């Protein structure tokens, strides 16, 4: 498999400035403190897995990192600036994939990818058919998503990573409904991404088999 994404937007700026930095993060939901005092630093090539039981706040953390939610306390900075200050620049370099696929069931895989591309505004154009082939969806381009299986839909959702070509990946349980070959495709994508200097934060309840780079872990909730 050839790596598709070899350059990043704004990749030049990365040198010299610090990468992704989180300090003193706290999240309170329904008056319950989900987590407190979370701090970490991610540099180019880092891989962070968020662990925790159901309801421990993994998704909340990832959404906060994406800038979808505001933390009750704490700061997140990217290249030395708070992400709420340089929101759009940060978002251009970040892809978030949550529990929901963020795709339209009544559109075809093609059309969905085109929307992703239009919204990401990423200039270089990887042929969509290549993206689909890479995710083992070859020949599925003309079919509306409500006629695809759960795993195939998830793959279309994950295609966002290949289409948008961003530096930070925030993946909330990416392996949901994927079969073992789909899972290893994504695992390999993550490894490649990491080797090319990308940053990935992901959560999963499944055992991960990633070789070639080391995974850091963060554990939420009571031990």
């Amino acid at each position, binding site marked *: 498999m050839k790596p598709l994404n070899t350059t990043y937007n704004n990749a030049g700026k990365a040198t010299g400035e610090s990468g992704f930095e989180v300090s003193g993060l706290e999240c309170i939901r329904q008056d319950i403190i989900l987590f407190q005092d979370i701090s970490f630093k991610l540099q180019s090539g880092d891989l962070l897995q968020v662990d925790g039981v159901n309801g421990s706040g993994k998704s909340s953390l990832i959404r906060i990192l994406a800038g979808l939610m505001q933390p009750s306390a704490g700061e997140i900075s990217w290249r030395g600036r708070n992400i709420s200050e340089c929101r759009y620049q940060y978002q251009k370099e970040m892809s978030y994939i949550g529990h929901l696929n963020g795709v339209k069931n009544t559109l075809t895989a093609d059309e969905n990818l085109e*929307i992703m591309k239009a919204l990401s505004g990423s200039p270089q154009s990887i042929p969509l058919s290549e993206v689909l082939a890479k995710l083992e969806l070859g020949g599925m381009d003309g079919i509306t998503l409500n006629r695809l299986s759960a795993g195939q839909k998830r793959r279309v959702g994950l295609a966002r990573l290949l289409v948008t070509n961003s530096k930070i990946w925030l993946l909330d349980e990416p392996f949901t409904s994927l079969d073992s070959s789909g899972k290893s495709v994504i695992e390999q994508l993550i490894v490649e991404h990491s080797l090319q200097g990308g940053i990935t934060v992901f959560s999963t309840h499944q055992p991960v088999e990633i070789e070639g780079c080391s995974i850091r872990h963060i554990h939420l909730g009571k031990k």
Partner: protein
Amino acid sequence: MWRDIILAFRHRAELFNPLIFFTMVIVLFPFAFGSDIGLLNRVMPGTIWITALLATNLSLEGIFRSDFDDGSIEQIILSGYPLTLLVIAKITAHWCLTGLPLIIIAMFTAFLLSFPEHVLQTLFFTLLLGTPVLSLIGAVAVALTIGLRSGGMLLSLIILPLYMPILIFAMLAVENKMAGMSVDAELYFLSGMLVLAMTLAPLATASSLRIRMS
């Protein structure tokens, strides 16, 4: 890029849906009010406006709800373009698919009913100025209430008082014109509302969407 985005949003909506919807209302129209041309002419502006209110309201809710349910709204927020711009694009696309066909069909119907021409012009202007305001205000209200437990009720409650002035001034304009009076004041008011809504509503929608996400 701008074109791309609008296209992306248009893609999702149904082009024929509102057209058929309005045709349906227009076809039902003579059934509901009999075939007395004089009466039909008098009630046409009101019916068109009520249809516009309902259609805007309900179709906006549909669009936002589906975006909310399938996670598209998260991706829109995180797209890296200013959310306000995207909201403007979305509302524009929505207006092109509901407001615009409504105006076209309304004009066509008026033509069939040989609606008095000088009043027709006024009706046209009120629609042209008013329907975008409906879409704009509707978007704010929908963004505020979407996905809430009692969302539907809240939506109506919020939207009703906001829509009322538009409707009142539009109808006033048409009536004044029928009575041979000047309609400048009403049209100025509607234009003012439009300018106001165009500047404020996208901002308000964007920030309500952000708030609703967390």
